């Protein structure tokens, strides 16, 4: 790779000087000033909504700052688009991959490069193979990107950015899709790249990653810089305090569970997937009343298919699913919901809410046919208003009124609307798919406590999460999903992060 010649680390290569960026209603970055040293790994740490990604997008030319300046090697940069950033030597790997799925690895790599008119892929292929050999990555350059695993797609993203010959590489939450082992591998390579002279800016909200990897760290809170420190001078608790602005307890109080009769029994279910990845291949799983079963796994190993088949939007072509003892293998979603199944979907905007409906409409959607909210097909407005008022109060939804359009609310409040709606009628089974993704610490704590409360009331909870800490905190039993099967069922006290990670990578010893 043509990473800039090794130079003595220390002097600032990139200076962010008093940058402010405002969006309607939010100041995303408020007078942010940071110096990034050459050939170092610099972390931007903060909660969701702290302004990390906006700042990175400004460095990459996606947004122009309202005021302030970016200087690269002393020269002010005025960037109108990512093309300008690339020309200046800045590259970025986004959290949501920017790939063209139907095209090959090579084609994805050469898009936007100043190639000749005729597509000549031999040069790209040579450099690609060199790079992969150099870093021990095995990916077929002619493979269709959409068929690669998420980890492989991550490599394509990183390489296609380095292909431009950038000096500064920005990575936005690069570990979200990796196993613990994958993270270790990635970090080892990032350190090597830094030693070769590359300057790396890594965005994360995970304290452990900051401590493991970075030379310096800047903590952001609500769009402002709290401080920039050398990583060696701080510990995780210091960083957590800086990040949240108060002392945090990274624990949820909960008693041991006393599981009752099974509320969910999935027996050897096979579910096809549309893309060829993420199918279920004989998955078996039980959830008892009054327990939380946490499903751990790298995304794309069948979590979506599991969620869909229990909710009833996709039917298994073999195997059976029972809910509170009744066979629902091929039942319609509304019949399953009537058995007392609540679902908190992973994508709350696309699958959970009608963003242009009012809050109160979203609060009764799905339950609107119940005799409480409608009679002979006519909605009972006064009952709906009463339920909305009650929910807004008990779930602490922050809104001026129940008639507010849902779109205007923050992620945490959106999730509370879904929780309030789904927990109506005391469900027997709660499916929670990534229930705290993208939420700030306070909202996450709230959602987690609610789930524990529901468990204590006697509901069975199936929690699917990519946040292993969350699984360890909440689950009474951990089920590890890999390639469409549960490959391990372990109690959290009897295992370690490393052991779960091995199973997640499909390398665990002997499936149950």
């Amino acid at each position, binding site marked *: 790779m043509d990473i800039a010649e090794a130079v003595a680390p220390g002097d600032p290569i990139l200076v962010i000087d008093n940058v402010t960026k405002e969006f309607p209603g939010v100041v995303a970055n408020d007078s942010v000033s940071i110096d990034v040293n050459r050939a170092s790994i610099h972390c931007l740490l903060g909660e969701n909504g702290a302004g990390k990604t906006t700042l990175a*997008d400004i460095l*990459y030319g*996606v*947004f122009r700052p309202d005021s302030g300046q970016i200087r690269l090697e002393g020269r002010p940069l005025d960037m109108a*688009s*990512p*093309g*300008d*950033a*690339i*020309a200046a030597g800045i590259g*970025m790997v*986004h959290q*949501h991959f*920017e*790939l*063209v*799925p*139907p*095209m090959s690895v090579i*084609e*994805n790599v*050469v*898009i*936007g490069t100043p*190639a*000749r*008119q*005729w*597509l000549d892929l031999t040069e790209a292929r040579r450099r690609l193979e060199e790079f992969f050999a150099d870093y021990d990555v095995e990916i077929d350059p002619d493979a269709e990107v959409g068929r690669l695993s998420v980890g492989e797609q991550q490599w394509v993203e990183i390489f*296609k950015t380095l292909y431009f010959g950038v000096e500064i590489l920005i990575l936005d939450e690069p570990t979200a899709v990796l196993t613990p082992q994958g993270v270790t591998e990635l970090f080892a390579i990032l350190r090597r790249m830094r030693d070769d002279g590359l300057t790396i800016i890594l965005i994360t909200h995970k304290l452990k990653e900051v401590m493991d990897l970075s030379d310096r760290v800047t903590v952001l809170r609500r769009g402002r810089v709290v401080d920039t420190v050398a990583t060696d001078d701080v510990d995780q608790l210091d960083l957590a305090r800086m990040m949240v602005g108060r002392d945090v307890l990274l624990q949820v109080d909960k008693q041991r569970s006393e599981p009752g009769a099974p509320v969910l029994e999935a027996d050897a279910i096979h579910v096809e997937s549309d893309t060829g990845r993420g199918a279920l291949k004989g998955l078996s799983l039980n959830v008892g009343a009054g327990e939380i079963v946490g499903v751990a796994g790298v995304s794309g190993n069948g979590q979506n298919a599991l969620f869909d088949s229990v909710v009833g939007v996709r039917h298994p072509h073999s195997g059976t699913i029972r809910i509170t003892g009744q066979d629902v293998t091929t039942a319609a979603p509304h019949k399953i919901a009537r058995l007392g199944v609540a679902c908190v979907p992973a994508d709350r905007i696309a699958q959970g809410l009608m963003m242009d409906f009012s809050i109160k409409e979203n609060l009764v959607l799905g339950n609107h046919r119940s005799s409480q909210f409608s009679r002979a097909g006519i909605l009972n407005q006064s009952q709906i208003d009463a339920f909305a008022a009650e929910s807004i109060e008990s779930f602490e939804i922050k809104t001026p009124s129940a008639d507010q359009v849902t779109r205007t609310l923050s992620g945490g409040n959106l999730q509370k609307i879904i929780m309030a709606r789904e927990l109506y009628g005391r469900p027997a089974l709660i499916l929670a798919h990534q229930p705290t993704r993208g939420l700030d610490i306070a909202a996450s704590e709230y959602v987690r406590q609610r789930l524990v409360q529901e468990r204590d009331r006697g509901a069975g909870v199936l929690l699917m999460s990519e946040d292993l800490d969350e699984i360890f905190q909440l689950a009474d039993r951990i089920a590890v999903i890999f390639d469409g099967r549960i490959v391990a069922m372990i109690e959290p006290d009897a295992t370690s992060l490393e052991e779960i990670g091995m199973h997640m990578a499909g390398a665990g010893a002997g499936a149950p």
Partner: protein
Amino acid sequence: MDDFFTYSVILGIFVATVKIATPLLIAALGELVAESSGILNLSLEGTMALGAFSGFLVASESGSLWLGLVGAAIGGALLGLLMAVMTATVKVNQVVAGLALNILGLGGAFFWYRSVYDAGGTIDLPSVERFRTAAVPLLSDIPAVGEILFEQHWLTYFALVMVPVTFVFLNRTKYGLELRSIGHNPEACDMRGVGIVSRQYFAVIFGGAMAGLGGAFLSLSEAGQFFPDIIAGRGWIALAIVIFGNWRASWILAGSLLFGFLEATQLALQASNVNLPYQLLLALPFVLTIVALVLNRSRSQVPLALTIPYHRGER
């Protein structure tokens, strides 16, 4: 029935097949390029009508059919430009914009025609000396094949040449790769510094010019006249052919020829009074398009971001 299966009737059907396929093929190839950039231009019918008229107008005023073709391409390109402004810049709903411009194209062509030629209230339709077929030396002497492929109109040769040209452009040049990438994931292109709006303008304007030429084939090569119903649904068939061809130039050629063949057979059946409902053959292309859609659904090449406007910074 016996006299239907004679050499001359069969040969006639094949000659007509290629001729009928010509305007469909030109318009569909243009639409392929436009859709590859992620913009569905539903106004093909109207664009073809406008091209048919602007070509006719320029040809009859200047006396040159070749200038007429230039006029047709410009007429179509202008409507394409309008479509590009509305979809690539203003980012309005592509279906709504396409349907609106379709009406504008159809109505505009007819209105313009009336205001130029209908002032005196004459019944005789104005006409121009139309293009003659141009035989390719030597190749046209090949029996059967020569007559079918090499004694056609200039625009037919143009259409056939544009098949490999479009294929090579889309699949073997960096511009084509970038265009197709925009059609699949404009954000990924933006994040690589590939400008989106200018490329979409190019694609949609090119598509408009091609549709205009397709329309001009009808007014300048076939009819030598312009009349309001001259396109008669061919724009919609061209749109169907892009889908039928699964967004690949070679299959779009096959689709155009198939549609042309069915139409030619249907005409021949009517002419020879064969007792077979020709409506069946008229309906067949649409049935086939639906069948092709179903068969292709697992390996559809449809641009993934077709009809979805791109706004930077919205995730």
